[in-house]
């Protein structure tokens, strides 16, 4: 039995085959059954969170008492952590798989990294506003202006990681985490020299994945705030 809708199984198959190679569409019953099962699972899983979320003004939750209320800073850190995790997972998939899958995962990682950049700026501006702005500018340059500037975006992320690590040293973040971010920054900076990057590959991805992965987990679990100055201690 063939579907006769405008978006037919043949159309879906041809598009999927372009993206993922050879794809064979099963019969209509498994397709409809799988779609129904997924929709049912999604509806069941999202009823309770949706009911709770519908009572919250997200914009107000993000903005209210920003930088003053510790719980909101923690929320910001966790949102940043979630987008960092998306960046991390999608970026790794893009790196490992290549081809059409990378064409899908790459933009998701890059868009999420823009969100991470803005949220980390908001988090770290209470530590050092100008340096945090510089870090955000460097990170956004890799995403927004790279076609004009040229070069490997990982080099920009190396500088970004080094700036963030300095800001972390100035905050209440664990020193070991800041140290890992420094390590990550130097790891990404090896891509400034293609011959060096080639010689060290794939080990030069390790510091970045370790440092940024640790920062992701820490943002999800804890958050960031300025280190108290001695006169207030």
């Amino acid at each position: 039995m063939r579907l006769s809708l405008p978006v037919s199984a043949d159309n879906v198959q041809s598009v999927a085959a372009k993206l993922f190679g050879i794809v064979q569409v099963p019969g209509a019953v498994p397709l409809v059954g799988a779609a129904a099962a997924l929709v049912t699972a999604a509806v069941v899983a999202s009823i309770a969170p949706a009911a709770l979320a519908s009572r919250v003004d997200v914009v107000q939750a993000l903005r209210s008492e920003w930088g003053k209320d510790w719980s909101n800073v923690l929320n910001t850190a966790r949102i940043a952590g979630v987008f960092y995790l998306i960046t991390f997972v999608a970026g790794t998939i893009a790196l490992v798989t290549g081809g059409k899958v990378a064409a899908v995962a790459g933009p998701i990682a890059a868009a999420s990294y823009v969100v991470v950049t803005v949220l980390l700026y908001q988090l770290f501006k209470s530590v050092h506003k100008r340096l945090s702005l510089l870090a955000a500018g460097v990170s956004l340059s890799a995403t927004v202006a790279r076609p004009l500037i040229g070069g490997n975006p990982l080099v920009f992320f190396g500088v970004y990681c080094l700036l963030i690590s300095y800001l972390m040293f100035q905050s209440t973040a664990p020193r070991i985490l800041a140290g890992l971010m420094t390590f990550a920054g130097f790891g990404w900076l090896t891509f400034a020299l293609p011959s060096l990057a080639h010689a060290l590959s794939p080990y030069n991805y390790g510091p970045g994945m370790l440092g940024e992965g640790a920062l992701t987990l820490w943002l999800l679990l804890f958050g960031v705030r300025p280190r108290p100055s001695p006169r207030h201690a």
Partner: protein
Amino acid sequence: MTRNAVARIAGAAFFLYIIIGIAGLALVRPGSAGAALAQAGQSASALTLAVTLYLVTSPA
């Protein structure tokens, strides 16, 4: 413009960035005019996303 409207623009820019990125990489030939156009669209989306998200998350 209300902050809710700015937040919606940020969300739209986020998805637009991803869609243009996927289309640019999967459907357009590298080096063609379409690829350059997609790259420009991605840059514009990223910039819009950054500015609107900053506006949404900044204190009044």
